[in-house]
């Protein structure tokens, strides 16, 4: 059975070019991809992650609200007993990467990340969780 990945847009950020490209890359790499659509809240993402019983959650963030919203998604998921890893992609300044990781984010992708690196990192994150 292929692994299930939830890809989501949280908050008011409507930039959905990257999230759709990433969803297609992961689908082509054999993952089962569920896309939440726009304007989700940390609570709706966490609820979807539980309902869909996903193995990984990917968030796309380009409006600068990542330091507020990504940790809130992780917290909501853990509060519901969902331990799937969370990865974040988008416009994330380098000096914010560690702060996101400290808040429980497993990996951060920035613009220009090649498709194969994306797939490799997602597989590595999933493997680390499984171990």
């Amino acid at each position, binding site marked *: 059975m292929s692994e299930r990945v939830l890809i989501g847009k949280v908050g*008011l*950020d409507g930039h*959905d070019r990257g999230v*759709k*490209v990433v969803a297609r890359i992961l689908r082509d790499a054999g993952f089962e*991809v569920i896309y939440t659509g726009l304007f989700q809240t940390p609570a709706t993402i966490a609820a979807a992650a539980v309902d869909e019983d996903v193995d990984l959650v990917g968030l796309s963030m380009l*409006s600068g609200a990542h330091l507020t*919203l990504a940790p809130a998604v992780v917290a909501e998921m853990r509060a519901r007993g969902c331990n799937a890893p969370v990865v974040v992609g988008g416009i994330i300044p380098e000096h914010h990467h560690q702060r996101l990781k400290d808040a429980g984010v497993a990996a951060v992708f920035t*613009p220009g990340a090649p498709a194969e690196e994306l797939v490799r990192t997602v597989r590595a994150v999933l493997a680390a969780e499984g171990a």
Partner: protein
Amino acid sequence: MTRTPRDVWREEFEASRLREADFSTMSGVPLAPVYGPADGSGDYPGQYPYTRGPYASMYRSKLWTMRMFAGFGTADDTNWRFKEIIKSGGDGLSTAFDMPTLLGLDSDDPMALGEVGRCGVAIDTLADMEDLYAGIDLAATTTSMTINSPAAAIFAMFIAQAEKAGTPRARLGGTLQNDILKEYQAQKEFVFPPRQSMRLVRDTISFTAAEMPRWHSVSISGYHIREAGSTAAEELAFTLANGFAYVELAMKAGLPIDSFAPRLSFFFNAHIDFFEEIAKYRAARRIWARWLRERYGAQLERSLQLRFHTQTAGVSLTAQQPEVNIVRTAIEALAGVLGGTQSLHTNSMDEAMALPTEKSARIALRTQQVIAYETNVAHVADPLGGSFFVEALTDEMERQAEELFAHLDELGGGSLLEGCIKGIEDNWFQGRIADSAFELERKFNNGQRVVVGVNRFKEGSDERGMELLEITNEDEARQRKRLDAVRHGRDQAAVDAALATLAAEAADPEINLMPALIDAAARYVTLGEMMNTLAGVFGRHVEVPTI
């Protein structure tokens, strides 16, 4: 002796007011304002179908407007920035709103958390609008507002504020972006369903046609369509198709075409494929002129002349070796100028990482100034006109666009208005754009398209980054407190009455909602209250998520 097209052009050129400059090359070769075949035949700027430019004299009369987009924090922060722009000789204000305002949410809405004042200025009530334009003579400057879903409500606040300060609405000049169709197709800042949103666009077009002769009611925008991943031809075709849809919308409401078409303007992207972009602008002018005259019966020259603003492509910029972005932006800006743009925003080198610092924004403006004042490229109108290559590429852009119009015309049963709305409801536009974005991404991944510093020439790409602008959350708390004070200081009975009127009038599609919105704005009704009241009647749009 018969007059050649060049004779006609010359007559108009000589009647134009010209700016003072030395129109010769650096080595002293005098330059003509435009070049064409030796026998005086061919196309000239200022002549139908305007392929070579809307005006006979182009930049010999006036350089493009260097309109830089600004907005941050609270209204008084941005007011301070506006006054600086006016002091330093800027000739127009361009307002960026924050994400909650763009989506019609008040700053104390739970969904606004972390977003207040971050990507632009926060506007909740008339009080914020009063602060935003305090001490600025709105009859002496023009104001551009980049707002779409809540455009009618924000416009109402703007009018109420100006009239309270003593400037009658008829004297206000500026532009409302107000292009809702591209929100569903690309930018995705929508609130109401498409047909209900179009009613608000109709109301603003009718209102400005009747009462605000200096106002541009819609800025039909391809920029966001391209940023979302479309090709150049799709940007061209979808933008013009949306333009045709607004024309049909207003004509359906009974407005004569020449009463509103002169006040429609355009906004295009300048991407990195230099000649394709220039061909796109040339094709846009030609198509618009022909469709407005032949399909919609426009007669006024101003209705046929497509005028546009350009912004360089944010999406072409890289986080790796960001200084190289200055070069990309310069090349893109040059395409806009050679394509005959009326105004231009150049992106800053840090665009792929954050909002610009003061220094990076200054370099972006300097880029335009180098093109305008050092290179002499503005001396001659449409300098690439007549190039076998550029003419062929212009024809090809036009051919591809006409194919897409034919599809939309069929989808709408002979109406571009219906075709555009159906295309949104069926996810046709969204699917085309996502397909094109993925196709381009595939070419980046397999190296077929090179991005310097990203998939080739990567030495130096892992160097520590540059200094970036940090935005704190302090403004958010300040703005919430301010909104709370306004809510407590206003006449609540007057607010309730204004909202009841708004709801009742919204339910009758024949009524123009602008008067009710202006009345509500004057009573300090919040943006969120107006939008929620309208949503109670119109419903809310939910996009079906597709990959």
